[in-house]
């Protein structure tokens, strides 16, 4: 009974591979990245694109990116989390308390910190889902609450200071420490330095001792998130929940579970960043992560995520973070008067998104 219809279709024009690539939300943001890179290649001091210069702007970009990838997944799932910036400070405080005040080893302290963060994620998620309020307002409340609790907690832990220290000492010998702080591939870089491939200081140590671990985490997370989004059923549920929560629920997607899980992932990403920052700095204070929630969302949006949910990608957030990190740090390498920093930042952001949007439209032939 199935009726035969022709298999080829005269109504499809052939499409170049460039067009096909640029249609993907992952890749549109590359245009912006290229633009920004070209800009700095022209205007900035050549030190910016040496190995150490690249590491120097990739490191903050990676830290932002760890947040942005979580934020992007949540945005695709149709929700926001404005509390991730405060979560960086809060998780840092919890982690500090566990390591310094309770003296726990990392193998216990890290999972515990992440668990606490996940719990806050669950609270955010459940409140959003059960009250039906927009997540914007719910997580905004937690932006304040977590930031406030951090201050109170830090003062209680230190007996009056807003800074908790001694983390470097407390974690120094821990075998897990190299995974969360410092640089990776030190041996390789030392060898490269010896053979003269990379620059060294006068005393023979390489200028770049290795790849900062946050960059590896950043890349790893971007790949993992992309895998989940594009290659697993869970990814399909995330897109569906963000695209139309009602329709998704009607079709049998466990929307509530998906959203709660996403809130957990976002919070855990923030906590992971906190752990790395705290171990690197050796201290934490009440102002960590200030306004990082917005930078995370900015990076995700530069990377092509829609604020309305249901569309976006982790790779986009990846490039978005690099664009943002590059613009923020890059100006310091130029001759431009630093008072113009914010004008420049705003202008570059606008240019990058407009450019990548225009390119995508042109390529996909939308009108």
């Amino acid at each position, binding site marked *: 009974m199935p009726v035969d219809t022709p298999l080829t279709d005269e109504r499809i024009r052939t499409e170049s591979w460039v067009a096909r690539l640029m249609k993907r939300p992952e890749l549109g943001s590359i245009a912006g990245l290229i633009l920004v890179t070209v800009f700095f290649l022209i205007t900035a001091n050549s030190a910016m694109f040496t190995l150490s210069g690249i590491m120097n702007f990739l490191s903050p970009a990676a830290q932002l990116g760890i947040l942005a990838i979580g934020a992007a997944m949540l945005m695709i799932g149709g929700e926001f989390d404005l509390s991730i910036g405060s979560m960086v400070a809060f998780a840092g405080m919890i982690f500090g308390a566990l390591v310094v005040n309770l003296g726990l080893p990392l193998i216990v302290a890290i999972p515990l910190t992440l668990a606490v963060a996940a719990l806050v994620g669950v609270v955010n998620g459940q409140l959003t889902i059960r009250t039906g309020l927009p997540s914007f307002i719910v997580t905004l409340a937690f932006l304040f609450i977590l930031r406030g609790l951090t201050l109170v907690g830090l003062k209680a832990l230190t007996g009056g200071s807003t800074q908790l220290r001694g983390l470097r000492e407390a974690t120094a010998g821990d075998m897990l420490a190299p995974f969360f702080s410092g640089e990776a591939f030190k041996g390789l870089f030392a060898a490269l330095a010896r053979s003269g491939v990379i620059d060294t200081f006068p005393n023979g140590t390489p200028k770049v001792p290795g790849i900062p671990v946050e960059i590896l985490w950043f890349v790893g997370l971007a790949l993992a998130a992309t895998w989940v989004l594009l290659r*697993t059923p869970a990814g399909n549920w995330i*897109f*569906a929940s963000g695209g139309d929560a009602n*329709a998704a629920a009607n079709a049998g*997607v466990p929307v509530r579970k998906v959203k709660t899980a996403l809130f957990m992932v976002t919070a855990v990403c923030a906590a992971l960043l906190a752990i790395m920052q705290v171990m690197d700095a050796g201290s934490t204070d009440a102002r960590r992560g200030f306004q990082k929630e917005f930078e995370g969302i900015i990076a995700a949006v530069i990377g092509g995520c829609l604020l309305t949910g249901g*569309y976006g990608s982790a790779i986009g957030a990846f490039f978005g973070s690099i664009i943002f990190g590059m613009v923020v740090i890059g100006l310091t390498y130029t001759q431009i008067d630093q008072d113009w920093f914010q004008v420049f930042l705003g202008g570059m952001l606008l240019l990058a998104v407009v450019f990548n949007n225009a390119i995508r439209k042109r390529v996909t032939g939308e009108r």
Partner: protein
Amino acid sequence: MTDAIIRLEEIRKHFGNVIALNGVTFDVRPGECHCLLGDNGAGKSTFIKTMSGVLKPTEGRILIDGKETTFSGPRDAQDAGIATVFQDLAMIPLMSVTRNFFMGREPTKGRGLFKRFDHRRANEICVEEMRKMGINLRGPDQAVGTLSGGERQTVAIARAVHFGARVLILDEPTSALGVRQTSNVLSTIDRVRRQGVGVVFISHNVRHALAVGDRFTVLNRGQTLGTAVRGQISAAELQDLMAGGQELAELEGSLGGTI
């Protein structure tokens, strides 16, 4: 009556101050096509949303295989073997046809950490099922938002049929369909019914209803007007019932009786 797969008794549903259903009783038996008919706003969609777990009835009982149940969500109903095509289709415009088709029930391959959405198989199944319905997809990764109205409806129907279990509910499935697609859907209903599935079919088209229906229940202003069995009722009578017994506009004659 005991052989009904699902039976809803005296269902009432209020939205704020609006009374959408005011005591509706309805059941579906295996292997039959039970048509639910009625005027616009009679409450048909509201009723089948209750049946598929999307809405909680304000009052009334739901019996599955004679046992009373409550659905806390559409997933419960699905687990009880109820597949539904909603009037608003429950599609995500930004997602591809395949992703919509398998939404919530993705085929996977690999195992453990490497368990993944089997895109190739999903695409194949999706294209194949659409072909069976008479739609030749340009590409399974086209976004649903760019499909025509009828193409979109066909995706929803093909999905429900593909996953359909014991009861298949179709809310005005043929409304946006072309001649060929309609005829395919009707014959699909026929085929599915012969496999022992109970079908609930909502339509405004008397001819479509009569072509496949075994029983006909008419809703009017939130209440059941009665149920007729195939052969006991003529097209004209049914049409009269559906219009709520009120006289039709004067053009009727030129339409040859049944619209």
